[in-house]
């Protein structure tokens, strides 16, 4: 054993830290940015605020300076048919302090664009590419906003709610269904008195 | 008297014996390595899986032979032949036992036993680098190219240490003829007189035959398969054959030069002693493969030039001094 190893005291006390964020940091954030930032109710301990897209870059800097040094995640949500349709959700973490904060940035469908935060937290670069790939939300100022998970020549953004689950295959004619017999509807000549639903369809939900 | 006919007969016997030894070696390695790995290795092909190499060989022969579009076709075909030829040729001077009397004729147990036997063997081993280099270069694939570059650099840098550590033995034996070197170890094997030289020689030989932990030229996880990435079927099998014969050659040379060859207590015939020692060396090779991890390329070079070479020179000087003053 090469004596460099030691069991250091781990960080503990996340719950109190989140209460601190709720009671101290969020009010300070709201005070600093006015109506650009709206605190939302926090049903499950993690504090969350709604940030206007125009303010996001400034809010990100402000939070980074206050100690939120890790951007845990960037994800999109499609709230079709709500308006504004999309939401980009940022989860932040401050490491020694164990603060957590969620930023929710509503995005309109027509101008689906949010400023990038990859210059504040480098980890955002890849995650923002993923949001662009799957939701079609652009990130202004991103150094390399290209598709990341889907092939480069893919059409459409799969995680949008109006994108069919089967993708382009959903429009394919019946020969595909022929091969995947278990997805084919019931055939004529099936016995009378059957009350079953077409195979595979989770009807009635 | 040695006649041309006898030499030819011995050559054929040697070629056949080596080919079967290579085949046997593959299955033995797979089985022994398997046992090291807590598993059994080939068991189903023939009794105890002994026919496995036969199946592998036949399969390789009937396999489609692919030559990449951009490859240099002539060189691409030539490279495995060079490899196998040099590997086999090294054996032309290696004796496996003392000369025997057959029908009144004294027959050496080698194809030839020239006065410069050691040099010939070492030279042919070193020549194998051409096969490897040409294979990587002609494949026109980046992985193969990197693999062959590594191989040639590795072989060249370890050749020096190998040769220098060998000189100690040659000085003590006072001969370049392998039978005489063995004869000089009748009382004490050179491993006891030349421990440092043995260690250097053994590591260098390991590196020369590109075995773990020196298997960089074909480091699977980095270079896919190294220099023979683009080779398939029989040509690939030829590279494997060359590699295994190199391993056998290296073990044989260690046996002959340091372990006393076929010398040993009389309850076993000389050839059996030779085979026992050879088998032990081969086992050590496999054992190392089961234990070691792969060196990094730059460390390999460091080890060759900065550690082994000075040690070999030190060994050489020390041997020279001792030989001069004691004798």
């Amino acid at each position: 054993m090469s004596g460099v190893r030691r069991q250091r005291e781990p960080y503990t006390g996340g719950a109190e830290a989140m209460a601190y964020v709720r009671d101290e940091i969020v009010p300070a954030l709201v005070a600093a940015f006015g109506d650009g930032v709206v605190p939302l109710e926090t049903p499950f301990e993690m504090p969350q605020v709604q940030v206007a897209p125009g303010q996001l870059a400034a809010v990100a800097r402000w939070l980074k300076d206050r100690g939120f040094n890790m951007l845990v995640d960037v994800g999109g949500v499609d709230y079709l048919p709500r308006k504004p349709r999309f939401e980009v959700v940022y989860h932040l973490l401050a490491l020694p302090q164990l603060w957590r904060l969620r930023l929710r940035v509503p995005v309109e469908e027509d101008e689906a664009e949010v400023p990038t935060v990859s210059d504040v937290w480098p980890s955002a670069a890849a995650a923002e590419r993923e949001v662009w790939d799957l939701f079609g939300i652009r990130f202004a100022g991103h150094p390399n906003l290209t598709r990341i998970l889907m092939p480069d020549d893919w059409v459409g953004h799969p995680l949008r709610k109006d994108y069919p689950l089967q993708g382009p295959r959903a429009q394919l004619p019946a020969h595909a269904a022929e091969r995947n017999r278990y997805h084919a509807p019931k055939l004529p000549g099936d016995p009378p008195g059957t009350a079953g639903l077409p195979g595979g369809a989770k009807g009635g939900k | 008297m040695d006649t041309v006919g006898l030499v030819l007969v011995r050559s054929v016997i040697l070629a056949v014996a080596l080919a079967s030894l290579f085949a046997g070696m593959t299955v033995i390695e797979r089985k022994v390595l398997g046992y090291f790995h807590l598993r059994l290795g080939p068991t189903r092909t023939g009794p105890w899986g002994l026919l496995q190499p036969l199946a592998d060989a036949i399969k390789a022969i009937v396999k489609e032979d692919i030559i990449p579009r951009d490859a240099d076709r002539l060189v691409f075909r030539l490279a495995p032949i060079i490899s196998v030829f040099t590997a086999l040729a090294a054996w032309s001077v290696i004796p496996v036992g003392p000369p025997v009397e057959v029908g009144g004729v004294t027959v050496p147990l080698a194809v030839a036993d020239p006065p410069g036997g050691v040099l010939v063997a070492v030279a042919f081993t070193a020549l194998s680098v051409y096969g490897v280099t040409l294979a990587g270069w002609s494949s026109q694939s980046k992985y193969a190219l990197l693999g062959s570059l590594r191989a040639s650099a590795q072989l060249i840098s370890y050749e020096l240490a190998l040769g220098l550590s060998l000189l100690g033995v040659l000085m003590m034996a006072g001969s370049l003829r392998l039978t005489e070197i063995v004869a000089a170890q009748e009382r004490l094997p050179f491993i006891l007189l030349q421990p440092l030289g043995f260690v250097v020689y053994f590591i260098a030989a390991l590196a020369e035959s590109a075995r773990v932990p020196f298997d960089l030229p074909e480091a699977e996880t980095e270079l896919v398969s190294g220099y023979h990435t683009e080779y398939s079927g029989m040509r690939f099998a030829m590279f494997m054959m060359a590699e295994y014969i190199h391993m056998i050659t290296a073990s044989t040379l260690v046996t002959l030069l340091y372990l006393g060859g076929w010398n040993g207590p009389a309850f076993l015939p000389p050839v059996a002693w030779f085979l026992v020692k050879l088998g032990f060396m081969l086992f050590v090779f496999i054992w190392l493969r089961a234990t070691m991890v792969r060196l990094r390329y730059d460390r390999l070079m460091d080890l060759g030039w900065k550690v082994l070479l000075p040690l070999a020179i030190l060994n050489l000087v020390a041997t020279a001094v001792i030989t001069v003053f004691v004798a």
Partner: protein
Amino acid sequence: MLKALAKGMGTTLRMLFRRKPTIAYPYVKKERSARFRGRHELRRYENGLEMCIGCELCQVACPAAAITVMPAENDPERPNSPGERYAWKYEIDMLRCIFCGLCEEACPTEALHLTREFELADFTRESLIYGRDRLVNQHTSPFQVPRNVYPDYRGWRPVHEPEEGHGEAVEAAGEGAAPEVPGVDRTAGAEEARPA
């Protein structure tokens, strides 16, 4: 450094002589756990009636949509199952199936059961769509449902206490593989299993 090397070499050398855990596969097969989720089967009651009543719950529960059930009315003279309906057509696409066991949980009569059979590979996709002919347990099947498949389903009793009361259902399931005895009336257990 030499000591470390020797330690490593010694460890591997010891491995050389350790007992090998290898299974000589086609001759010796690994003992599968009682809960192993392998090929499906549709079980029968002791009297030969199928336990499946064609309720299609398995089809709905399957996340991979691998199951197709088409029920039909039972002929009252020669019923196939104790219920009103039976599975006229029952297909499982073994290649779609992910062997998650949700169908087994969904089956209200415990007709569908995942056996311990895992050797299913075949040459065509079509041959791996299992129909009733291969799913309904034939009486020659050696499979016996082990008792601890449902030692306590869903924790309604403290575990590891002697079974009582509702053990009959498990018993009946366990004997589902028993030989078909034609002409025998439905047993009480089968009656009880009718859902409505």
